[in-house]
C-alpha cells in the first residue's frame, strides 16, 4: 500500500485551522486515506475528531496511506499540505 511520511510544519500542530484544511482536503480525494503517528493505530483522515485525537504537534512525524486509483497523487498532495506552515498562511490571509 502506498505510504508517505511527513513532519507536521504548522505552528499549532494538526489542530484548529490546519486540521480543518487537512481533513477537508483528505475528504475531497475520493479514496479512503488513513493517517497515523509512528507505529500507532491508523485513523480515517476525513474524520476531524480522529485527526485531533492523534495529538500531532509541530515536528510530529505522521504517516499517510491510501489505496485505490490516484493514491500516489493524493498522498503527494496531502503530504505537501502538511509540510507547509498553515498557521503562517492564516496570518498572511488575515
Amino acid at each position, binding site marked *: 500500500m502506498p505510504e508517505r511520511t511527513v513532519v507536521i510544519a504548522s505552528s499549532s500542530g494538526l489542530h484548529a485551522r490546519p486540521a480543518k484544511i487537512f*481533513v477537508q482536503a483528505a475528504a475531497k480525494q475520493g479514496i479512503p486515506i488513513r493517517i497515523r503517528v509512528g507505529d500507532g493505530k491508523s485513523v480515517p483522515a476525513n*474524520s476531524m475528531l480522529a485527526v485531533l485525537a492523534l495529538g500531532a504537534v509541530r515536528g510530529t512525524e505522521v504517516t499517510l496511506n491510501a489505496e485505490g486509483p490516484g493514491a500516489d497523487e493524493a498522498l503527494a498532495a496531502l503530504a505537501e499540505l502538511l509540510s507547509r506552515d498553515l498557521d503562517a498562511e492564516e496570518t498572511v490571509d488575515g
Partner: protein
Amino acid sequence: MAETLRGLGVSPGRAAGRVYRMAGPPLLPAPAQAVDAEPALSEALSALRATAAELAARAEKAPDTTSREILEAQSFIADDPGLHESVEENIGAGMDAAHAIDAACAHHRRALLEAGGYFAERAADLDDIRNRAVAVVLGLPMPGVPDPGHPFILVADDLAPADTVNLDPSVVLALLTEKGGPTSHTAILARARGLPAVVACRGVIGVGDGTWVSVDGARGEVETGIGEEAAAEIQRQASADRRRSATSRGPGRTSDDHPVKLLLNIGSVDDLGPAVTGSPSGEGPAGVDAEGVGLFRTEFLFLDRREAPGYEEQVAAYEAVFRAAPGGHVVIRTLDAGTDKPLPFLGLPEEPNPALGIRGLRVSRVRPEVLDTQLDAIAEAARAAGAQPWVMAPMVTTVSEAADFAGRARARGITHVGAMVEVPAAALRAGRLLNELDFLSIGTNDLSQYTFASDRQHGELADLLDPWQAALLQLIADCAAAGQAAGKPVGVCGEAAADPLLATVLVGLGVTSLSMSAPSIAPVRDSLAAHSLARCRDNARVALGADDPLQARKLVLPD
C-alpha cells in the same frame, strides 16, 4: 400585573426590554426499551446534520474571524464521519437515538482529553454538539443564548463562561439570574461589559419570554409588566448616563484630594486598546482613563490562545502589555491555574476538593519550572520594554511561601514583588508578609470564599459571599493597617473594588488602590470624588459595625 422582584445588584446601571430565557442542557430520559434500529439511526444522524447546519449558519453571522472559525470547526465536528460511525455502533448495540448521541460524544470527548494539550480543549465543543443534537431528538428548546432578533434582557438560572463567550453587548441589555452571587461569573462578566445585572433574583426564571421588564442593577430590583413606552424612556436615560460616565477623566481622588489609584484588571493587551487611545466614543470602555494596570491575569492569555505557554510567546505578550499600559504601571500576576481552573498542559490530577488543593502558587510545588519560565519571561519582557513591573503570586498562604517567591523573583532582577491576599491565613499575617514583600493586593472574591467557607459559584450562599460582609471588611482593614505601618501599598483587585459605594468604604479602611474592569472606573471615580476622606472613614466604621450586608449598604447609602 406589575411585580417587583428583588435580588443582589452586582453591576450598576438601568435597562429595560423584553426578557428571554436561556435553556439549560437537555436531560436524558430513561433509556428506551426495544429500540427499532433503522428509524433510530436516521433520527440520530438527522439531528447531528441539523446541528451542523445550525452551527454553520451561526458561523456565517459571527462578528469576528476567531468566533467564526470556532463555530465552523464545531459544525465540521457535528458532521464528522467518525462521530456518525460511533452513533451507528451504539444504535447497533441497542441504544435509542438520544443515548447513542450522548455516548458517542462522550467517547470522542475522552479521546481528545487523552490527546492532552490544546487538543483537550476541543472537548467542550463535543459537549455543545451533544446538547444541541440531543435537544433536537427530544424536541426540547435549543440550549444556549436565545436569538429573538432584537435587543433583549437575558434571563438564566446561572451563567457559565462558555455560555457567554459570544454574548453581544449590543443585543443583550442586562443579565438576570435566579442563582449566582456577587462574585459569580455573571457578576464579573456584567461589570466587564458594562451591563446592568441582578443575581440571586428569586422567581425571575418564571417570568415568561417576551415580558417587558425594567432592571436597576445598583438596587437589585427588577420590575415586570411595564409598558413598551416606559421601557423606551428608561433606555434613553440609561444611554445618556453611559455617555456622561464615559467622559469622566483624571486620577482617583476623594473630594478633599486624597489620592487613590484607579487601575484596570486585564487579561491581555487587547483589553488595553481603548484605555490607551483615550478617544471617548461615548459608549462602552472606550476612552476610560486609568492610572495603570492593577491586575494582569496571565492565565487568561494562555486560555484564549489555547496553547501551552512557551518562553518566547510569553515574553512577547508581557512586553506588549508593559509597553501599552497607561503610565507604564503594570501589576502582573503569575499563573493562577490549578485543579479548579485546569490547564491541560499542567497535567494535574483531579482532586476531590480543588478549591482547597493545588492551585495558584501551589502549582509551583509540583511544577516549579512553569513559574521559573514565567518569571524569566517577565524579567526579559521588562528589560525589553524598559519597564519596572510589579510582580505578584496568587494564593500565597504563609510567610515562607512569600519569602520563597520573592527570592525567585528578585534573583531575576524584579524589583517590586508582592502577593495576592486571598487566604485568611495570609490576611492575618499581613504585617509579616510585608517584611518579605513590597506590596499586597487583596483578591476579595477568593478571600470571601475562604473566609466564609462558601463556594464562589454557590447560588444558595450568595449572602455569605457579599463583599459588604463585616468579617471580610475586617480582614481588609487589617491588611491596610499593616500596609500603612510598613509604608507599603495595599490595593484591592477583586470585584469589591468595582462597587462605587463599597469603594468609599475600602478607601476609608486605608486601601491605596482599586483595580477593576474598564467600565467600572468612571462610576468609582465619580463616587470617590463625591466623598471626603473623613466621610469614607465614617462609611468604613459604619460598615464594619453592621451585622449584615444589607444593613451595611442601607446605612452607608447617601440620602
